[in-house]
C-alpha cells in the first residue's frame, strides 16, 4: 500500500477541495496542510525504498505482470520526495499569490491533481498507466495553463495542447506496437521479453517511446512548445510546470533507457548524446537572445535537460549518478527562479528586462535570494549546480566524449552570462522610472517565504553534495542493474 499513498493523497485532497468548491479560501489552507503531510508520506516511502529495496504495491489482488502495479525504487521515491517539496512550496506561495477568480475556478484542486499525476507517473510500474498518469497531469496542466483566459495564455495553451496530444498519440502507437508484439505492458515484464522480440519491432517501440518522452522532456528538436507557453500563465503555475513537468519526461527517458535500452536498443545512447548536446546548445543560445525574465528561464530548462540527458546517454555509473543528482537539483533551482521571477515581476510591474531595474538598491535581501539559485544554475561552486555539472562533465571526460564535454562547458559559461544579464537588468541597473509604491507588501513578504526555503534547500544541496551524491550513486547502481527492479516486481510481491 505504501507506494500508492503519495499518489492517492493529492487526489484525495483534490476531492475534498471539490466538495468545498464554494469556499476557495479554505482550499489554500487545505492545500498547505495536505502538501505538508505529503512530504512526510514521501519521506516515509523514501526510507522504505532506500532501506529495503524497491517497494512494490499491487492493486485489486492481481499479481504482476497482470495487474496494475506501483513500484517505488530509489529513483522513483527520490523524485516523489522532491515533487512533494515543490508542491509544498507552491501551496505555501499560493496562499497569497493567486487571484480570486482563478481560485474560484479551481486552481488549488487542479494543482493537487497535477501533483497526483506527477507522482503517479514516477511510481507506476507499467507503460499504460504511465500514459494514464501523463494524461492526468496533462489535463490538469492544460486547465491551469488556460485558466484566466488572457489572449496570450490562449496562444500558449494551444501550442502546448497540440504538441502534447501528438506526443500522447505517439506514445499510444508505441504501446500498441509493444503490446501487439510481446503482449505485455508491465515495465519489468517488457524488460525481460523485449530482447527476445524481433529487433526491428523493438527498435520501433523504443524509438516511438523516446520521441513521445522527448516531447514531454522538451529536448532539442521537440522543445518548441515550451518557450511558446511557459511564460504565459501566472508565475506560480509556470514555476510548478518548470520544476516538475519536463522532469517527468526525463524520468520516463531514464526509466526506459536503463530498463530497455541496453538489450533492446543499443543505438539509443548514441542518439541521446547528439540530442543532449544539441539541446544544451540551442537552449542556452535561445535564452541568451531573450529579453523577458520568464522566457530566459524557460529556454534554460531546455539547455539543462540537455545536461541530464548527456549524463543518461553515457550510461556509466558516474554519469547516471550525475544525471540523477542533476534532475533533483534542477527541480529545486528552477522552481525557485520562477518564483523569484514572479516576485520581481510584481515589484517592477513588468517582465520585460528593459522595464525592470533597481531591485538590488531597494531590496538586497531578495537579490541575495536570486543569486543563490541563479549562480547554482550557472554552476558556481559551492552551490548544487556546480557539483551537478562537475559529475556529468567528469563522466564525459572519463567516457572520452570530448565534444559533449566542450559543449557542456561552453554552455555553462553562456548560462552564467545569461544569469548575469538577468542580474544586471532586473537587479543592478537603476529603475527606468522612480518607483512610487512600497516594495514589500504583506503579500510579497509571504511569497518570499517559500523562495527562502527553496534557497536554503539549494545551499543544503550544495553543502551536502557528498552524501547526496553517494545516494545518487546508489540510485545509478540500482538503475544499471535492472534485474533488481524486475526481480522485485515479478518475483513475488510484498
Amino acid at each position, binding site marked *: 500500500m505504501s507506494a500508492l499513498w503519495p499518489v492517492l493523497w493529492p487526489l484525495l485532497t483534490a476531492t475534498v477541495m471539490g*466538495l468545498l468548491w464554494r469556499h476557495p479560501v479554505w482550499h489554500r489552507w487545505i492545500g498547505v496542510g495536505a502538501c505538508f503531510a505529503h512530504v512526510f508520506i514521501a519521506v516515509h516511502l523514501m526510507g522504505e525504498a532506500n532501506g529495503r529495496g524497491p517497494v512494490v504495491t*499491487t492493486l*485489486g489482488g492481481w499479481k504482476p505482470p497482470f495487474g496494475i502495479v506501483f513500484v517505488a525504487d530509489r529513483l522513483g521515491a527520490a523524485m516523489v520526495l522532491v515533487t512533494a517539496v515543490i508542491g509544498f512550496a507552491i501551496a505555501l506561495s499560493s496562499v497569497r499569490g493567486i487571484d480570486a477568480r482563478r481560485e*474560484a475556478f479551481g486552481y488549488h484542486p487542479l494543482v493537487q491533481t497535477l501533483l497526483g499525476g506527477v507522482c503517479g507517473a514516477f511510481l507506476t510500474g507499467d507503460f499504460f498507466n504511465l500514459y494514464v498518469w501523463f494524461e492526468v497531469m496533462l489535463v490538469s496542466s492544460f486547465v491551469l495553463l488556460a485558466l484566466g483566459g488572457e489572449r496570450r495564455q490562449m496562444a500558449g495553451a494551444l501550442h502546448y495542447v497540440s504538441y502534447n496530444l501528438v506526443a500522447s498519440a505517439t506514445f499510444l502507437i508505441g504501446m500498441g506496437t509493444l503490446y501487439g508484439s510481446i503482449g505485455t505492458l508491465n515495465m519489468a515484464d517488457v524488460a525481460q521479453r523485449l530482447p527476445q522480440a524481433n529487433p526491428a519491432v523493438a527498435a520501433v517501440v523504443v524509438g516511438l517511446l523516446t520521441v513521445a518522452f522527448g516531447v514531454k522532456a522538451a529536448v532539442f528538436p521537440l522543445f518548441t512548445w515550451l518557450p511558446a507557453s511557459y511564460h504565459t500563465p501566472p508565475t506560480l503555475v509556470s514555476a510548478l510546470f518548470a520544476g516538475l513537468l519536463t522532469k517527468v519526461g526525463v524520468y520516463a527517458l531514464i526509466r526506459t533507457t536503463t530498463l530497455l535500452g541496453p538489450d533492446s536498443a543499443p543505438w539509443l545512447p548514441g542518439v541521446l548524446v547528439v540530442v543532449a548536446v544539441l539541446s544544451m546548445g540551442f537552449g542556452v543560445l535561445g535564452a541568451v537572445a531573450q529579453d523577458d525574465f520568464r522566457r530566459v528561464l524557460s529556454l534554460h530548462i531546455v539547455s539543462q535537460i540537455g545536461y541530464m540527458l548527456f549524463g543518461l546517454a553515457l550510461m556509466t555509473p558516474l554519469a547516471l549518478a550525475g544525471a540523477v543528482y542533476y534532475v533533483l537539483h534542477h527541480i529545486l533551482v528552477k522552481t525557485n527562479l520562477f518564483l523569484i521571477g514572479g516576485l520581481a515581476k510584481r515589484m517592477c510591474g513588468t517582465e520585460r528586462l528593459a522595464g525592470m531595474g533597481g531591485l538590488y538598491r531597494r531590496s538586497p535581501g531578495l537579490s541575495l535570494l536570486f543569486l543563490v539559485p541563479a549562480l547554482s544554475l550557472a554552476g558556481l561552486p559551492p552551490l548544487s549546480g556546480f557539483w551537478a555539472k562537475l559529475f556529468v562533465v567528469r563522466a564525459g571526460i572519463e567516457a572520452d566524449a570530448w565534444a559533449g564535454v566542450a559543449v557542456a562547458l561552453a554552455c555553462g559559461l553562456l548560462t552564467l552570462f545569461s544569469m548575469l544579464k538577468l542580474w544586471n537588468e532586473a537587479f543592478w541597473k537603476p529603475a527606468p522610472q522612480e518607483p512610487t509604491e512600497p516594495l514589500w507588501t504583506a503579500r510579497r513578504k509571504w511569497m518570499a517565504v517559500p523562495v527562502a526555503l527553496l534557497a536554503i534547500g539549494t545551499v543544503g544541496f550544495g553543502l551536502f553534495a557528498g552524501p547526496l551524491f553517494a545516494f545518487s550513486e546508489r540510485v545509478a547502481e540500482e538503475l544499471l542493474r535492472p534485474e533488481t527492479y524486475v526481480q522485485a516486481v515479478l518475483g513475488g510481491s510484498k
Partner: protein
Amino acid sequence: MRSLILSVGARAVSPLLLVFSFHCLLRGHNEPGGGFIGGLVAGSAVALWVLADGVERFTVQAVPGGEGQTVRSGSSALRGGMVDPVTVMSVGLLTMLASGFVGLALGREDFLTGAWWTVNTPLGSAKLGTPLLFDLGVYFVVVGVVVAFVFELSQEAPQ
C-alpha cells in the same frame, strides 16, 4: 432558437434516459454497460434538456452587482437549490476512493480488492460488491464532468 417540439420531446425522453442510464450502470459488471456508459447517458439527458430549454433553466445570468452573482463561474451561477456539477464529481471521486478502501478494511491485501455480499430479497438474491460502488463513483464523476462542460459550452459570451 427554441423549438417547442424538442422542448416537449425532451421532457418525455430525458427521464427515460435517466432510468436507462441506471439500467446501464447496474448491468455493467457482466454485460456491456457500466459506470462510464451510464454516466454518459445520464449526462446526455441533461444535455438534451439544456439544448431544448436553454441553459437559463439551470443558471442565472450574472448581472454585475446583481442578484445571484458569485465569483464561481465568471458569467453565471447555478439557480438556487441545484447541486453543483463539481460537487457531483467530487462525491463520485470520493465514492471511487472509498470503494478501494472497503476491501482493505475487510482485511484484503490490496487497495481496490473486490468484496462481495449476497443480498436476499423477496424477488431473488443479488450479488453486490465494491466494484458496483466503484462504478457508481465513475457514474457520478462522468455525469458531473459532462454537465459541467455542457453548462460551460452553452453559456453565451458576456458582451
